């Protein structure tokens, strides 16, 4: 018996199984089996389609589909057996179906926990609600954050605007300033920013000096000192750097400037951050000062020369006065010797008068020599010394003298005639007024309010018999002539009164 026979030959194994073929209800039964089989095939197809989309359960789904297909084949086989008992094929199909079903059962139980762990739709709904709440909260947070961000941005914008305005103001004050302004690196001295005024002072454009070392632009002679001073500012020893120094113009000439610099430190530290300097052009002032200095030095030279000339002149004048006095001493010596050889008292008296006159001349020079300017001297002490010398020389101890004179600086040309006039008048009084050898002589020089002077020589003696200038005794005659000549020389007028004693009053227009 072949396999095919075994499968489909009823005589082979199930000869007795065909009794239903002849029964009338066999046909509907076979029909029901066929319909069930077809329906099961449709279900299997639906399962396959369904589980193709569910990868996780695909294996189980296919197992169920195979199980259903097996059941469908079982129904078809059952329907077939109604016509001819084909137990072999039915056995094979049912065995296969049984195996598949058992496998499906096992797989179903094995997979059940993982399948049941998959969320149910109710659970999903609750989780969905939670998620939705979370999302809502987050959204709210985000909205709030956004609002804050917008606010912050607005604030920032204001700050930026303020900073921009401040920066703009600073830039204008920096760029448009008429004094030079520079910002530089405190460590290297490199110019970071310079305004037009500074650049123009040196004959540059601002961009031509930016990037260069500021020290490079300083006049070489002024560089070392400036750097030393600046180091003291950098170290904090000095608060500010203020110096007058020269810069080099583009054409190589120097220009004087006054630099005031401060160092801005890094906030919260001592580290130098930036140098801020104001540079003022003081070239004109310096030049004017220099010109002034030159002028002053020249003036000083002139003063020195003039002073030297004056000193020289003073030396010469002193020498002249010295020689005049020496010569007068020589003349006096001759007179002394001459008088010693005379026996006539009148001649001796004439010699004495001469010596008095010479003494007056010498005294004028003596006063001049002792004066500060060698030209003028106070007349009062001169008249006092002159008069008292005449008086003492007259050997009349009982004649008293009073000399009063306003303070008056006189020169040689005025002092000589005045001195000689006083000499003559006092000598005359001494000689003629006091036969008893006793009396008082007064010499008075006063300045009038109109600028004129009055010289008064008076005595309380016996008075004159003859007016001055009239021919009389020979010695008195010479004295009178000299008096008149001196009055003329002084451009003065003279009144002589002889009531109680003699009073000679001489009016002098001005002191020469």
């Amino acid at each position, binding site marked *: 018996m072949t396999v095919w026979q075994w499968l489909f030959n009823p005589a082979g194994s199930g000869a007795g199984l065909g009794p239903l073929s002849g029964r009338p209800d066999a046909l509907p039964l076979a029909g029901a089996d066929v319909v069930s089989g077809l329906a099961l095939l449709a279900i299997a197809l639906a399962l396959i389609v369904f589980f193709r989309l569910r990868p996780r359960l695909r294996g189980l789904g296919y197992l169920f589909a195979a199980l259903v297909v097996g059941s469908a084949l079982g129904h078809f086989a059952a329907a077939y057996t109604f016509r001819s008992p084909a137990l072999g094929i039915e056995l094979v199909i049912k065995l296969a179906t049984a195996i598949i079903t058992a496998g499906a059962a096992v797989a179903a139980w094995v997979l059940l926990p993982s399948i049941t762990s998959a969320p149910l739709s109710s659970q999903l709904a609750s989780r969905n609600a939670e998620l939705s709440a979370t999302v809502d909260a987050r959204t709210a947070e985000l909205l709030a954050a956004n609002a804050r961000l917008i606010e912050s941005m607005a604030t920032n914008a204001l700050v930026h605007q303020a900073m921009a305005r401040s920066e703009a103001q600073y830039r204008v004050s920096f760029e448009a300033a008429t004094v030079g302004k520079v910002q530089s690196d405190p460590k290297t001295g490199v110019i970071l920013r310079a305004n037009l005024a500074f650049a123009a002072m040196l004959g540059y454009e601002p961009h031509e000096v930016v990037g260069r070392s500021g020290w490079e632009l300083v006049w070489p002679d002024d560089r070392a000192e400036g750097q030393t001073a600046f180091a003291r500012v950098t170290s904090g020893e000095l608060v500010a750097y203020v110096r007058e120094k020269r810069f080099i113009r583009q054409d190589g000439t120097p220009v004087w400037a006054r630099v005031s610099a401060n160092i801005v430190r890094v906030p919260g530290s001592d580290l130098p951050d930036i140098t801020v300097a104001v540079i003022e052009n003081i070239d004109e002032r310096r030049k004017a000062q220099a010109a002034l200095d030159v002028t002053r030095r020249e003036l000083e030279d002139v003063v020195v020369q003039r002073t030297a000339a004056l000193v020289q002149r003073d030396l010469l004048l002193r020498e002249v006065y010295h020689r005049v006095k020496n010569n007068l*001493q020589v003349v006096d*010596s*001759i007179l*002394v*010797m001459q008088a010693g050889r005379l026996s006539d008292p009148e001649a001796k008296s004439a010699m004495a008068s001469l010596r008095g006159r010479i003494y007056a001349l*010498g005294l004028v020079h003596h006063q001049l020599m002792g004066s500060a300017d060698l030209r003028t001297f106070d007349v009062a002490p001169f008249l006092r010394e002159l008069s008292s010398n005449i008086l003492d*020389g007259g050997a009349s101890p009982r004649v008293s003298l009073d000399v009063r004179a306003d303070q008056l600086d006189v020169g040689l040309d005025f002092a000589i005639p005045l001195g000689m006039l006083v000499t003559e008048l006092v000598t005359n009084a001494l000689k003629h007024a006091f036969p008893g050898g006793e009396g008082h002589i007064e010499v008075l020089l006063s300045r009038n309010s109109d600028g004129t002077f009055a010289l008064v020589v008076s005595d309380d003696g016996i008075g004159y018999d003859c007016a001055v200038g009239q021919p009389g005794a020979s010695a008195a005659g010479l004295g009178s002539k000299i008096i008149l000549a001196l009055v003329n020389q002084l451009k003065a007028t003279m009144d002589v009164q002889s009531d109680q004693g003699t009073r000679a009053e001489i009016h002098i227009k001005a002191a020469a």
Partner: protein
Amino acid sequence: MSDLKRHVLIVDDDFLIVMGLTEQVEQMGLTVCGSASTADRGVELAGLHQPMLVLMDMRLDGAKDGVDAALAIYETIGSKVIFITGSQDPSTVVRIREDHPSAILFKPVSNLQLRTAIDAAIGLDGG
């Protein structure tokens, strides 16, 4: 001082002045023992004559002046010195004060001034 003679030495480089002074001093009853025109000669004569008084000019012939001579005389002999000078420069006067002058007279010197100074220095007994 008692060892010194009642003589007067005159030191001046101007002969006429020496003569005039000599006459005046003699009229006062004093003897002039000599005169010199240089400081060195003055010192030499002072040593020789031991005068009580020297009339000393400031400017003299030679390099030395009256103060040099007066100082030397003062130290070696001790004579009194009356300076008679034409100058009254402060420097001159200061220099004269280095010595111990009995008096400083300025030319031209009146007879009275000379007499008074000599009387103060050595005393004139009415002569």
